[in-house]
Each structure stands twice: as C-alpha cells, then as structure tokens.
C-alpha cells in the first residue's frame, strides 16, 4: 500500500468508528442514551463555544505552564541522574513519590499550601515530571556505548559525553515522554481546576455542568480537553518521528561486557537507607517551610503518632486495614489487566500502524476525558462492582505503558527484521524472535509506569463508583477534616505504589539477570 492509500484506510476506519458512535447515540443503545450521539455533542459544542473560550484559555495557560516547568525539571533531573548515578538512587524515593502520589490525595493539600493558580500549575507540573524524567533517563542511558567510548578516548568526560552523544540520543525518548506528558498536563490542570474553587478553566466548567444531567455538555468539555491534549501529543509525536528516523540504530549493537566497580554490602545498605530516609527528610522540611498548622500539615512523626499513639489510633488502624483489604487485591488485578491492554494495543500499532492511527484519537480521548464526567456512563454500563473498577483502572494505566511500548517497537533496527524476513518469518515469528526480545527493556519501563497508576485508578473508582477502600476512606476523611487519615492514606498509597514499582524492577532483574547491565 502506498502512503496515500494508507491514509485513506485510516480515515475510513475513523469514519466507521464515528458512524458506529453516532448510530449508538441516536438509537440510545448504551445505558438508555447516556452516551450521546457525536452530532449532538458537536452541535452543542459549536453552539456554546463562546462560553468555552475563557475556560479553554485558562486551561491552556495552566496546562502549558505546568508542561514547561515539569518538563524542564524532568530533563534536568534525568541529566543529573545520568551524570551522577548516586543521585538517582538518593532521589529514587522522591521520584516514585511524585509519580505515585494520587492527585486526589494531593489536591486538597496543594490548595491550602499555595495560591489557587500556583496550586493548579504545580499539579500539572507534578503529573508531567515522572513520565518525562523516566523516558529521558532511559534514553540517556541507552546511548551507543561505542560513541561514549569514543568521546572518552579523546579525553572527554561525562559532561562532554552527555552533551555530544547522550542528549541527542535521548531526544526520541524525551519526545515520547512529552507525548505522555501533554495529556497529563491537561488532566492535571483540569483536575486542579475542578477541585480548587477556580472561576475559570474547563475543570470549573465541568463541575458546574455536572449537576445538569446533560451528558452532551460533559462530552463536549471532554472533547475540548482532548483536542488540546491531542495538539500537544501530535506535536511531540511528529517531532519524535522526525528525530527517530535518524536515531534508528545503524546495526545491532553488540552488548559489551563492562566491569562495574564492585561495591561493598555496607555501601549498598547505606544507599538503600538513604533512598528511604530522604523523602521523609524532604517531607519534614517542606512542612517546616510551609509554616502550616499541625492540624492540617502532618509531619512523618505526626502520621506515626496519629496511627499508633493518638486517641483514635485503634479505630484509625482498623479503618485503614479494612480499606487496604478492599483495595489491594483489586489493584493487583487491575495492574495486570491494564498492562495487558497496553501490550495488545502496542502490538496492534506494531502490526498495523493504519489501524493504530485510527484507534489513537479514541485512546487519547480516554486520557483527557475527565473520569468524573464519565463515571455516570461507566456506572450505568458496568455497574458498581469489580468490572467498573477494572475498566477505570485500565483507562488510567494503559496509555503511558502503550506509548513507551510502541516507541520500543519503533526503535528496533530495520536490519533485524530484514534478517528474519529473509527466512520467510511469519508476523508472529517476527514478534517472538525480534520484537518482544528487542523491546524487553521498554516492557519494563512500561510496567514501571503502569503499575503505580493502577492504584490511582482503583482509588478513583472507589471514590466515584464503588464507595469502598482507600479512595472512599480518603474522601470521607476530608468531610471530617481528619487530616491525620488523609496523610495516612496518602502515605500508605505511596508506599503501596512504591512496592508495586519495586515489584516491576524485581521482575526486570529476574528476567534480564543473565545479561550484562548498561
């Protein structure tokens, strides 16, 4: 098929999906018409567009500011971690914390600690930081070792290697990070607007519109949010495509056996302890600096006291354990489902870029359509049980994992496929022999991105649909001004996510154990 033909097929597929949507909406096939027809959504969107404008402008401003700040910090941090691996270990706890802290737990704290606008930008930037940082670091570290050797051979140090080789090598990875970061920034801005009492922004507009029981308005807001995210996503994707072509490895690089300086057990233990303690130190310092009352701003000791020493310690422990018992099993299941879905999707994108290009706009839509607007629909279709939780969790987890996996598939050198093609390999063989092994590292990066998000997905489902577990506990605690429990849930959910993250790393070690590192 030539290029024009392929675009035609993509367009036809998208048109087909849209028509299916339209028919479903017109005939009120889904949940008694809760899924509106696309024409109803669009005509209302067009008619009301002047009302959208100030909200759109505000969300764009917040999201793009957060996007820039978050990404600058993320790339700078990745460079620092690459240059001085020690810092990466030290900041590991902080990084995972930033990534895993559920925005629904963070938003109320940000809102009281900062001015409204600063809080909203901060949330957007926080959601942006981790995906870009991880992608950039992986990119920096996977630079061609021969090229690095070459720089060293001419007396260049690690800064020269970073500047001349690593940064440019990492560019496609950084841009794939931006692809995840763009919808994340929009979502962060909308989430913050939704909760923080903002006058303007799509999030505020959504909140006011929720009570109207008019799904076409909610979907209109979701579409608008998707449009801005798509803009960022497509820009990053185009840039990535442009630089990836040149970066494609020229041949399969021979993995080199490198000696790593052997470190003693003591050194390792010290690093582990430091990584564990460092986030708590930062936490304590931030609380001191904020000057907030201990009623709302709990220090690490404050949480310990609340959970073990205070008057209500026993009741708090019981409530927490009950919630954990409800949340943890579902999270484990949700994370598997989410990852599997991402893998299937990236497989489709690998096997048939045409189909993928048609699916992508819809996949992107799930990332930016605020979940709170979709909940009535999700509840009406899937009920309030395990299914709805898994659906919401998958929608939260799959996207980041998918982008990374698809990028991994794209980085496989052409020559590798030519080789097996020569033996008449089938698509499945190509997948098994080349694609899956070659993007092994990316599978684990994807896993690390997806796993902690599974908990967030489950908590959102609990908050909006099922009324169980940690998500519900968190929101009820807000009604009681029970900041001890709010901080406890935030801490426990972070620890849980860190555990899941470590699980992914452990799996990576077990699988790649035989191979050399770096």
């Amino acid at each position, binding site marked *: 098929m030539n290029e024009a033909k392929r675009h035609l097929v993509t367009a036809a597929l998208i048109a087909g999906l849209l028509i299916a949507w339209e028919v479903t909406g017109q005939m009120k096939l889904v*949940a*008694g018409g*809760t899924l509106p027809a696309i024409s109803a959504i669009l005509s209302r969107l067009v008619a009301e567009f002047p*009302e959208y404008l*100030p*909200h759109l402008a505000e969300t764009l401003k917040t999201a793009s500011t957060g996007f820039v700040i978050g990404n600058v910090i993320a790339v700078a941090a990745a460079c620092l971690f690459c240059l001085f691996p020690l810092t990466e270990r030290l900041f590991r706890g902080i990084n995972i914390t930033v990534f895993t802290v559920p925005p629904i737990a963070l*938003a*109320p704290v940000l*809102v*009281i600690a900062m*001015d409204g606008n600063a809080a909203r930008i901060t949330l957007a930037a926080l959601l942006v930081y981790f995906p870009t940082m991880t992608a950039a670091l992986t990119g920096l570290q996977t630079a061609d070792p021969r090229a690095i050797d070459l720089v060293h051979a001419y007396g260049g140090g690690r800064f020269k290697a970073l500047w001349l080789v690593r940064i440019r090598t990492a560019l496609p990875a950084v841009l794939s990070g931006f692809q995840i970061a763009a919808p994340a920034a929009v979502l962060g801005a909308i989430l913050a607007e*939704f*909760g*923080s*009492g*903002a*006058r*303007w922004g799509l999030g*505020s*507009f*959504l*909140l*006011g*519109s*929720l*009570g*109207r*029981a008019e*799904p076409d308005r*909610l979907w209109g807001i979701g579409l608008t949010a998707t449009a801005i995210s798509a803009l960022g996503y497509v820009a990053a994707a185009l840039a990535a495509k442009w630089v990836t072509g040149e970066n494609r490895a020229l041949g399969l690089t021979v993995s080199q056996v490198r000696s790593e300086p052997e470190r003693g057990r003591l050194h390792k233990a010290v690093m582990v302890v430091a990584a564990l303690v460092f986030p708590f130190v930062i936490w304590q310092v931030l609380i*001191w*600096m*904020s*000057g*907030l*009352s201990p*009623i*709302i701003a709990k220090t690490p000791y404050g949480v310990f006291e609340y959970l073990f020493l205070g008057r*209500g310690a026993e009741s708090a422990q019981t409530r927490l354990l009950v919630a954990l018992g409800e949340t943890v099993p579902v999270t484990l299941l949700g994370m598997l489902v989410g990852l599997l879905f991402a893998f299937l999707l990236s497989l489709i994108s690998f096997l048939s870029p045409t189909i993928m290009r048609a699916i992508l706009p819809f996949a992107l839509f799930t990332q930016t359509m605020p979940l*709170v*607007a979709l*909940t*009535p629909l999700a*509840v*009406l279709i899937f009920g*309030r049980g395990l299914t709805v939780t898994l659906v919401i969790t998958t929608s939260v987890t799959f996207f980041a994992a998918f982008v990374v996996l698809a990028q991994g598939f794209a980085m496989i050198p052409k020559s590798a496929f030519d080789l097996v093609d020569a033996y008449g390999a089938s698509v499945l063989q190509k997948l098994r022999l080349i694609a899956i092994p070659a993007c092994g590292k990316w599978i684990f990066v994807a896993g690390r991105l997806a796993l902690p998000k599974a908990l967030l997905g489950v908590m959102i489902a609990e*908050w*909006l*649909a*099922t*009324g169980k577990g940690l998500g*519900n506990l968190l*929101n*009820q605690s*807000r*009604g*009681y*001004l*029970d*900041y001890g429990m709010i901080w406890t849930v935030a801490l426990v959910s972070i620890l849980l996510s860190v555990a899941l993250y470590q699980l992914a790393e452990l799996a990576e070690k077990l699988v790649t154990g035989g191979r050399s590192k770096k």
Partner: protein
Amino acid sequence: MSISINRRRFLQSAAIGAAALSVPSGITRALAATPLTMQAAWINDAEFCGYFAALDEGYYTDAGLDLTYLPGGPDVIPESTLIAGRADLALTTPDTTIKAIVDQGAPFKIIGAQYQKNPIGIVSLAKAPIKSPEELKGKTLAVPPVNVISVEAMLEINGIDRSEVNIVPYAYDPTPLLKGEIDASLDFTTNVPYTIEQQGEEAYSFLLYDFGYKTYNDTVVVTEETLAEKRDLLVAWMRASRQGWNANFQDPAAYPPKFADTWFKGTGRTVENEIFFNEAQQPLIENPNGIFAMDDAGIDANIETLNRIGIKASKDMFDTSLLAEI
C-alpha cells in the same frame, strides 16, 4: 516559619495595592477600606446570592470593608483555608467544623448560620418516591463521601439499621438517578429537583432536617484569633451580608439575572436554575431575628443531633455575641 507567613502577608498587601491601583480614581473609599477575605463553600451559585448582592450594591464598601470572595470546590475544605490563614471567615458544614474542634482541637467559633435548616435532603423521582427514611430500606442511595456521616446520623435517629440501605458514592451528576441506576441521592433539595424537572421527570424530596437531623448549614466560622483581632470587621461583614440577603429575598427572581454576566458567568449552569435555587432556599435561610440568627433552641437542636452521632458538640463552640452587635 515566620518568614513564610510574612511573605504571604507581603504578597497579600501587594495584591491589595494592585487592586487599589485599579480602582477608578473617583472612589477613594476603597483605599480606606480594610481588607477581609471570605471562603465560600462551593462554586458560584445561588447559594451565595446574598453576598454577591452585597458586593454589587456596595454594602461591604459602605461598611468599610474591602472584601475578597473566594469560591469553593470539591477540594476546598473551607476550615482548612482558615487554618492556613488564607481567609478570615468561611462558610462551613457544622458537623465538619465541630468534629474538627473536638477531634483536632481546631480553634474555631461558629458566629452565625446562613441556613437555619440544612438544605440537604433525599431526592428521588416522583414516579418512585421515597418519602421517609423508613422507605430507604432496601434501596440504593447515592451520597457524596463527605456527607455519609450525615446520612448515617439521620438513619440512626430514625431507628434504621445502616446495613439496610445500600449507600454508594454520589459524583455530582444526577444521571444515574434519572436512569434508575440508583433510587435516590443526597443533594441540596434547593437545586437538584430543578435539573430533574428539566429532564422531563418529577422530583420528590425531603429534608434530613425534617427527620430529626436538625443542623444548620453554611455556618459562619472564624478562628478564635480572628475573632479577637477583627471583631469589628466581622460584625461589619455580617451586617453588610444581612443587607445583601435581605435585598436578594425582596424578589428572589431579581438578582440571579443580574449576575448572569458577572458572578454566574462561565459556571456552566443556567440563570433559571439559580432562580429556582434562590426561591427554594428562601424559607430555609430567613429567620424572624434576621439572617445568620442562631437562637438557643436552634443551637441546642444542633448539639443534640451531633451528640447522637458521637460528635461531642457543646454550647461554647457557638458565639452569638456578634449577632447581637449587628
């Protein structure tokens, strides 16, 4: 610590300076006015009509106040805003406030109550009405997580076992009620019935208040520190706000259209909805002793209700002395 507070004060005064500069030169009074910040409980809707009226009519300015109005939202816990020093007074739900005083030792005082009767109630469809707590048995009721405590209290007061009602989260959207996925929801009875009627259904609702859950709502709360330092300003605020509410209730349909392009602009709601809201809330707010009134019987009812659900409310949490000074 003190540095950050000073910085915040500095930023505040800088913002006030900027605001003062933007005031037309003819109005010199604004420059002399003393700044005061209030934290509302929700986004801009008819619930706060009285304050918008007072702002637009210049009642606060006349009282020597330069009022900053902060809208609320799901993540804004008004009491937290007070503790963080970002507002001088806040409109709160009394159960949260009193629980915070009892459990956390928060230094709050309730100095007035906007809603004499709490407008939260059980809303169902008229074609399958739920007319009393008794009829909730075996039904699915959607409740915002923060209000579960109130519903549990109401059930207990009416002798209904909590486990007989299937309580699920309510996510601000009445669609599941309209589609019959849930049988009833807990919401402001002043608001949701309008939406339901717009969707071609008839609503039935009852107040928790009428079934023994006798609490105020949108209680005016300050910290003890503010009460001591800004007593005059608070009285001035209550006086001006009362003026605003009185003006608003002269004709509940009059003000909402005026706010369409200002206070209510961009909220995503309709002016008709706000008029409905405003009319519905009038009997819940008005009191012969004036807006914000808290008489002994009312306070006792609040205390008794909260005590029944284990929140140890007491009289000293309410301070009626400012009401007397209005």
